[in-house]
């Protein structure tokens, strides 16, 4: 039988490369754990770097589809790339499995029977913190996000369950390095908590500066995609105790997850972040679906039905797909902590949502 070809479309250069690396390493670890085979077929993984440029991604995707003739496209990290790559992939009737990006339009109006996400819809992690802020009775919350689409979505997600007062909705330019003036504002406004979304290096800076300004002990710091395993090595002790929302954490107590985390750390000398977990699950998903079709990919409907079943043991526990191809899963409040071996990771504090679908699924027209 011919090798199964899988294209990984990930951001592997520039400041955000670390996110793509986690996803790539997670996927490749899964392939290795499955003995180099998915659904019984030998696998060839083609990795391409989207350079975080949507138009570059479109051409590279065409290369994957037509030159490499991949059976699945797995990726990407960023929503703008996801949206740009969506059309050529689903037009060619190839299955597209996101390992992070979950933009609302792909979950809603523009949903496609060829698109699945092993991650989440973008808003959901933020919703976790909105719910937590509401439940804990915070009266005044300060919101802070970079001024781009994902930043606006994040704050919108937070506000879905938070009904208290928002003392300030502050947007900083993307790639802001120095938050000193924001911190001054926060200190002077004295909110009950702040919520922020600062992925990548911005998050490192913000957390260190927040701690440095002495705010960390006074005003709770709630965030998503800000304090995670890609940033913790740089944030170090400054992040300890800070709260995030997630669908998973490395310390989650189930055997396959323990094995995964240990294997990942051994292979890549880093604690895996959720990007790695999503990618690992994506490989498990493909494996399970191909087992069901007997390794065949030609019959798209059969393959889709097999994928939909999500008949695999997700590292995060409960996992099933909604009608729009996005997961229905549990969400947790997590906290950054230091492990006995000195490494930092996020750890589950409590479950916030159980079997939680995303808010856009009802706009999706796919019914089967």
């Amino acid at each position, binding site marked *: 039988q011919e090798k199964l070809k899988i294209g990984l479309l990930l951001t592997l*250069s520039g400041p955000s490369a670390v996110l793509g690396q986690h996803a790539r390493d997670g996927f490749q670890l899964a392939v290795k754990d499955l003995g180099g085979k998915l659904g019984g077929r030998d696998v060839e993984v083609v990795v391409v770097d989207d350079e975080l440029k949507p138009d570059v991604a*479109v051409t590279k995707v065409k290369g994957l589809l037509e030159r490499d003739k991949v059976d699945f496209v797995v990726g990407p990290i960023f*929503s703008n790339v996801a949206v740009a790559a969506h059309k050529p992939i689903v037009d060619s009737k190839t299955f597209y499995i996101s390992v992070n990006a979950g933009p609302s339009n792909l979950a809603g109006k523009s949903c496609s029977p060829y698109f699945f996400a092993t991650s989440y819809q973008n808003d959901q992690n933020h919703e976790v913190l909105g719910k937590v802020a509401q439940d804990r009775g915070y009266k005044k919350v300060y919101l802070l996000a970079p001024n781009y689409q994902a930043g606006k979505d994040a704050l919108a997600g937070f506000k879905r369950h938070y009904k208290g007062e928002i003392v300030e909705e502050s947007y900083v330019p993307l790639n802001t390095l120095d938050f000193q003036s924001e911190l001054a504002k926060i200190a002077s406004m004295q909110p009950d908590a702040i919520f922020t979304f600062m992925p990548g290096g911005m998050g490192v800076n913000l957390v260190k500066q927040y701690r440095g300004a002495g705010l960390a002990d006074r005003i709770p710091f709630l965030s998503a995609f800000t304090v995670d395993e890609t940033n913790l090595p740089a944030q170090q002790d400054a992040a300890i105790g800070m709260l995030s929302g997630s669908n998973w954490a490395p310390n989650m107590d189930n055997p396959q997850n323990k094995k995964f985390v240990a294997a990942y750390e051994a292979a890549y000398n880093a604690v895996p972040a959720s990007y790695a977990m999503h990618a690992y699950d994506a490989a498990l998903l493909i494996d399970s679906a191909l087992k069901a079709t007997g390794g065949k990919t030609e019959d798209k409907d059969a393959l889709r039905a097999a994928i939909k079943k999500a008949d695999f043991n997700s590292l995060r526990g409960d996992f099933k797909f909604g009608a729009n191809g996005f997961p229905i899963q549990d969400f947790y409040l997590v906290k950054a902590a230091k492990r006995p071996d000195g490494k930092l990771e996020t750890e589950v504090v409590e479950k916030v949502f159980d079997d939680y679908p995303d808010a856009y699924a009802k706009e999706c027209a796919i019914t089967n």
Partner: protein
Amino acid sequence: MTQMTQLQSAPMPSAATRLDFLPIAVFAAFAVAPFLASSSGAEGYVLSLLTRVMIFGLAAMSLDLILGYGAMVSFGHAAFFGIGAYAVGILASHGVEDAIIQVPVALAASALFAALTGAVSLRTKGVYFIMITLAFAQMLYFLASSLAAYGGDDGLTLPSRSLVAGSGFLDNDFALYGATLACLLGAYMVSRSIVGSRFGRVLRGTKENAIRMEAIGFQPFHFQLATYVISGMMAGLAGCLLANQAEFVSPAFMTWQRSGELIFMVVLGGLGSLHGAIIGAAAFILLEEFLPEIVHAATFFLNDDLRSRLTENWQMVFGPILILIVLFARGGIMGVLRRGSHG
């Protein structure tokens, strides 16, 4: 008068005529490429890649027109990419999907932006010009990023490629390829004619010594501004094409890094020859596309781990290639070809 120095101007015309074949060869290659593409088994990919090459070639050539002939180094040329692309995207999202309307709107918008920002920018010179053009492009970039109705930072997907007089034939990759080739060729001929014309001579003179041009009675500003507008329109056209090629529009089209890349393409190809910029764009994009594979193939003797790390970090090879080209191939690729045809 020494006879020797007179001789030195003699070889120039013959070398020039030999090099006249180059643009013909370039366009001939673009013309036959689709036939090869269909036999490659990945025609959509090959066409998409080459269409990109031509689109960037068009933008780079338009930049060469102001940079190589007018010494106006614009570090904001990607803004026109954005204007062209957003003209298509915004109109399409309002249901106006025909290129017959989209393209003129894009050209008009590009011309307007070029005229306004050009008139201000041309007050400055040299590096100041570089930076003020960057400033205007950045403003436009941030503006586009804040257009929530049109996808903001995430950009917007086109429902389909532009119609042409109601017909959807551009949906065929060959048709888009052909249309792009036609645009590139047309723009090339217009540019070629401009630089050889009276207007072009004044422009080149201005590049050499603007004060002298004023002292013989020209007003350099008018010539520079006119060229800036023409160049902006060509880049705007490239933006329309890019939107159609990617079927997607995003502020990422006009980051300063993009403007920088356009400059690199022009310098890589060699300044001031027009087709040099096209060749530079091709070299740049094809290297970006294939260097990872080339690196992979060329490092067969290394162990797998190191090899894949090198492949992933292909820019570690790309960087030194650029440096070597500058150090040893003066005048870019065209400089090498020119010397080759001398010796």
